């Protein structure tokens, strides 16, 4: 890998300033490093300067109001084993437990996790010239290449790379918020507004701008978050990316759905909320037929390629299975 400068930031403000004011164009923050170092070794990311933010940003899990604030530097493993999270936000607990490997979960920060880069093999191989994410305008080798793992929702003719994470789906389904420290100070946005579709420029993956750092996530205060789960379907039982996954948060009114929150993973270019499926379920009895229908509705408009034509069907089945499992949960409120 190429030599780089290394600086350790003392707090969020300093980290943000260092990033924003760096004279070196390719300056990156580094937290757990599980994506960045991997891609640096592959010569895909070539930062010339790294700002270490491990000691600069919050690393605590704290109550705020009735909800919870997760510091950006909380490690995945720590959040996964937190009792409040496990009890009140099962969907977050499960999404984290089913992600990556124990070793990676020990290193990876929550803030870094939501920014994990895609596992598209063409993006990760610097000898492939055709990748709009690496080189805007260069084309997309995945469109007529090996695309079994690629996205069917939120794609464009520029990019079909799948958003790889799990935790983000849980945040989507919970209507979580993200706290950001930037050059204009602190701001809080909906997590759903963090990622952007690869419509024109797949190299741009989020709404963050230079100097912006994720400092934390806010999980809402509510009792309905307890009827939630994360179902991940994959080729092997651990350390594998989702072929399809569903984060479900159900607010039931007896046998009827007051509100269903559904996010899907492994099938979309960004963390994806299945709002049409949610609308479909509103007020309905959650039975086998409606669960299946909701799954299908979520994939209306899906665009499949040669090797991932199975994904709409698998994704729909995953949502249906997850909905019925969530309904069957015995919850202590």
């Amino acid at each position, binding site marked *: *890998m*190429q*030599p780089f400068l290394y600086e350790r930031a003392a707090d969020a403000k300093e980290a943000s300033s260092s990033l924003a004011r760096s004279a070196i164009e390719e300056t990156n923050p580094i937290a757990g490093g599980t994506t960045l170092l991997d891609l640096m*070794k592959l*010569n895909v990311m070539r930062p010339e300067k790294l700002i270490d933010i491990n000691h600069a940003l919050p690393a605590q899990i704290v109550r705020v109001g009735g909800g919870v604030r997760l510091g950006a530097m909380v490690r995945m493993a720590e959040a996964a084993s937190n009792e409040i999270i496990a009890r009140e936000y099962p969907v977050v607990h499960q999404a984290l437990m089913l992600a990556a490997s124990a070793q990676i979960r020990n290193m990876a920060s929550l803030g870094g996790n939501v920014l994990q880069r895609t*596992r598209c*093999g*063409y993006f*990760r*191989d*610097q*000898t*492939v010239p055709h990748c709009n994410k690496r080189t805007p305008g260069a084309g997309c*080798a995945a469109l*007529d*290449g*090996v695309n*079994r*793992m690629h996205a069917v929702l939120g794609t464009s003719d520029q990019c079909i790379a799948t958003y790889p994470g799990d935790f983000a789906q849980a945040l989507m389904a919970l209507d979580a918020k993200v706290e950001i420290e930037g050059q204009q100070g602190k701001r809080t946005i909906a997590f759903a507004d963090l990622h952007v579709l690869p419509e024109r420029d797949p190299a741009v993956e989020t709404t963050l701008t230079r100097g912006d750092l994720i400092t934390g996530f806010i999980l809402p205060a509510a009792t309905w978050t307890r009827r939630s789960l994360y179902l991940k*379907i*994959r*080729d*092997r*039982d*651990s*350390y*594998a*990316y989702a*072929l*399809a996954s569903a984060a479900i948060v159900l607010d039931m009114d007896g046998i009827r759905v007051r509100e269903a929150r559904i996010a899907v993973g492994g099938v979309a270019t960004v963390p994806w909320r299945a709002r049409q499926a949610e609308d479909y379920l509103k007020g309905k009895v959650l039975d086998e037929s409606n669960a299946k229908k909701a799954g299908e509705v979520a994939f209306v408009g899906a665009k499949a390629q040669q090797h991932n*034509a*199975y994904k709409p*069907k*698998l994704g729909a*089945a*995953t949502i*249906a*299975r997850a909905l019925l499992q969530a309904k069957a949960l015995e919850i202590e409120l």
Partner: protein
Amino acid sequence: MTIAAPEPKENMGRPEPRIDGRLKVTGAAKYASDADVSKPLYAVLLTSAVAKGRITAIDRTAADKIPGVVAIYTNENMPPVGEFAFFGAGGEAGSKAPALAGADIYFDGQIIGLVVAVSYEVAREASFATKISYSKVAPSPLMESEGVETADASDVSPRHKAISKGDLSRALTMSNVKVEATYETAAQVHNSIELFSTTCHWSGERLTVYEPSQFVTGMKFGLARQLAIKPEQIHVVCPFVGGAFGSKGSLTHRTSLVARASKLLGRPVKLQATREQGFTIATHRAETRHTIRLGATAAGKLLGYGHEAWEQTSRLDDYVVDGTGASTAMYSAEAIQTKVHVVRTDRNTPGFMRAPAEVPYFFALESAMDELAVALKMDPIELRRINDTMVNPANGAPYTSRSLMQCYDEAAKAFGWSNRSAAPGSMRDGDWLIGWGCATAAYPTQMAPATARVTLTANNAARVQSAVHDVGTGAYTILAQLVSERLAIPIERVAVELGDSSLPAGPVAGGSVTTASVGAAVAKACDAIRAKLYPNGRLENDMAAAFQALGAGSIEEYAEYEPEGLPKGSAAALQAGKLAIIGGALPDRTMFSFGAEFVEVRINARTREIRVSRCVGAFASGRIVNPRTARSQLMGGMIWGLSSALHEGMEIDVNTGKYVNDNLAEYLVPVNADIGSVEVILVPEIDTKVNPLGIKGLGELGNVGTDAAVANAVFHATGKRIRKLPIRLETLLDA
């Protein structure tokens, strides 16, 4: 006895723990890349970014400017000096086309240069900074790509004759029940945890090479040819190997490059290839396609068996794996016809990978046998029983021993097969469909010449030396055990030295030959020691007294083993680097180890992911020297079989011929969570004809047949027959 150390049954030795286990788990075992050389330079390979075409320019301006870069070798400044012969044609090299011979590119990831620097990091950065330009030609990477060439295997490899007996088309016409189907297996890569590494160190004109190898004797002679130096100048050191599986039996082109760079620079040079380079600089298991035709009477008696196969190879070398010699020996068909083709693609040359021929060919045969049983409405075990045979049906040569049905009966009982409800989809556990399947495992018993030296000293200690390898199989322990048994001294008192070309020549750690072949040489040396020490022929209790009577402090004996059927002088040929292996389906006798494997799959009724909850395998393999290491090998084999059935496959880009999943996150192998219970049953078997020690070899046996057992179980669970590996959930979403 624990599960890991099964109680020995008839004709089995003690379940001794591994004598090298502590060294390995404490990190004290020194692997090749741990070699302590003074002030080494570090090398990184340059590999081609295109699959076909020519290098038009090499721009090293930016790379040369990086501080610490010592040298960049390409075809422009370090063309090959020696001879390179393909291992499939009796040579030593993974391919006959040496690296840096010219500007031509034959496959993606081909070695095109070597960067040497003061550190690994600098060398790697310089490898990225070296800009190579190519004139590209669209490659034909897949067997179905336009532009591939197909050749008859018997034309390119005289060893692989088509087998023909009786009139197949007539036999099929006469059959009451027929199966004709096409099966496909995926390209797989060994992915040993220990990456490919080479460390070279010259002392004057003498070269020491530290490299993980399955064949240090072959490497010494092969590398000498490649470097145009004398074999006596080369010393290969490799006491431990961190996984090989066939990938470290032949020489990759990296070795000669590192040796030459080290010589030119006058410094030791260390190279560590990356995981992704491991996909292209060495061999892999070729993808294959098979058309099987089976015909049987209504009672299940096989009348005809036809097997036509296609195997991927490269443009450069015709590697033929051909499993029809083994597959046609299995069942007593009246008429047999086989044909094998190689398909030359723009990819790297394939090669040996654990049970190279048997894994793909038995997936096809054992799936087809299951399909035939379904068509006959017959239990699949009974179909095998009806067609069991004590002679090779292809040529009438008798088996030295064959315990296939004993394996089926023991495994079926342990598995609970009698509780199986035969109708597909008829067994269920809530949301999970349950499927049970079984298949035959078989592997040819093969022998190679071997030499060994054993030294016994009066203080009740022994040393055994042979240039063979423990590739994780347990060879250290097995050889210590043989000496311990033969000379009646405690196993703790036996030192074993392996993996060094200065030791007596040994064969490749391949073909499951080591225990039987090296064991035979070791036993011979031990017997010679006994004859000297105990002239009355009896093992005395007082060894010290026997030594005193002899007037010696130690006895050293060297012995050679030459397998029956090989031309005389095969051990001397091995000492000169020429290896011959004999066994399996021979003209006058038939020698195979057998097994029966049973698996239970669970398939989610909604989302269709496939999990294997348990598997049982029963195996018979002549004398079992060590039930613990035997179980470990067979269990590992079955787990790899599950991997092959459900996970493994190189994803090949149709446009560029690149392996898209060239890492361990995307090239899937099972994790612990994927493996439920794995039960290994060792079936006692005595074979006095197969070789001096009656050992049939089982290192590769376990992962034969598992693919088919899984596919057969998937059919039982869903009613859907999957004929292509790996079996993935998307093929079952409509089932």
